[in-house]
């Protein structure tokens, strides 16, 4: 009886968060680069599948790139932009990066916590995204020891549509058993010239397909089958050690973006 009650409590909390599936986008068009390339990046806080609301990015606490185990701050590359979603506009950032060295370039952005009025709580999504130059693997599988982090066991830039992505949810470098994870497909093209979202590619048959709720196993590990080419976001909710910000509840989340390619 007690178990059942707990179960429904968990379900209720999943439903609540599911309805508010925010994703920190760290977007670039191409993650598998053939040769050294200067890439465009966009930092936007929205709902990548439904795009029903674009939030303001409250600010950026840190933005770094790790390549061949060397970390470099990219804070001085950030330029404020207004990003147009299909419903409204929100404050975001644009930046460019010269991906010159062969290998992996792992970006990590830590936004300033965002106040979500509907939940009377703050959300901070520590977000990882990576690009690779010329196919040599260097840093993609590193555990960076972030407060909240998804460590990939699959190269996030080398996934065929129909393949899978496996990751481990970590909190300060330690696996988080049974972590709650939300998965969304970036269901719109991003126009880098106009800083806007295009029309939706696919329609969800029901709300559970908009933000898909999955869970990690006892070792904090999860696998997700990727049905379609494009960007997919995975966010593990509230796994970071910080639970309070400015006297209110804080959900410190771990987010990773992966990009699947059509087999053609």
């Amino acid at each position, binding site marked *: 009886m007690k178990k059942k009650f707990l179960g429904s409590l968990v379900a209720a909390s999943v439903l609540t968060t599911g309805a508010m599936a925010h994703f920190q986008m760290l977007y670039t068009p191409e993650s598998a680069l053939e*040769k050294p390339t200067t890439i465009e990046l966009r930092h936007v806080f929205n709902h990548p599948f439904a795009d029903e609301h674009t939030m303001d990015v409250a600010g950026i606490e840190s933005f770094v790139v790790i390549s061949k185990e060397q970390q470099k701050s990219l804070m001085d590359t950030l330029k404020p932009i207004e990003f147009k979603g299909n419903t409204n506009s929100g404050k975001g950032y644009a930046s460019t990066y010269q991906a010159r*060295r*062969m290998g992996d370039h792992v970006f990590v952005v830590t936004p300033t916590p965002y106040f979500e009025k509907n939940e009377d709580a703050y959300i901070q999504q520590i977000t990882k995204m990576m690009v690779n130059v010329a196919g*040599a693997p*260097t840093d993609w599988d590193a555990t960076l020891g972030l407060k909240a982090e998804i460590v990939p066991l699959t190269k996030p830039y080398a996934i065929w549509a129909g393949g899978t992505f496996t990751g481990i949810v970590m909190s300060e470098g330690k696996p988080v058993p049974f972590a709650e994870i939300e998965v969304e497909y970036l269901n719109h093209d991003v126009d880098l010239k106009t800083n806007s979202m295009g029309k939706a590619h696919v329609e969800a048959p029901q709300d559970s397909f908009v933000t898909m709720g999955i869970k990690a196993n006892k070792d904090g590990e999860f696998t997700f089958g990727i049905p379609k080419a494009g960007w997919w976001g995975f966010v593990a909710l509230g796994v970071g050690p910080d639970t309070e910000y400015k006297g209110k509840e804080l959900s410190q989340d771990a987010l990773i973006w992966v990009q699947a390619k059509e087999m053609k």
Partner: protein
Amino acid sequence: MKKVIVASLLAASSLLAHSALMSCFDNGDGTVTCEGGFSDGSSASGTNFFVRQGGNVLITGRMDQHSEFTFKKPEGAFEAVFDAGEGHQVVIQGKDIAQ
């Protein structure tokens, strides 16, 4: 004895399974840097590298401890070649090397 054979078989199969990789960029100061590597992440330090123009080899050497080789950019068309043995050669055309 048997053990030794198994070990050498394994080494051979891993050599075949990975592919040789190279990426080059123009440093903007009249030099070009080429980085070599393998798809399994292993180092290319000590691997042969050369630059050729037509049928002539202009520059030859080995990848350094960072799996890199920097050379003076030749005038005209050239090719940078990462030579990790038969079936493991990567060729990049000079015209495809940008800053």
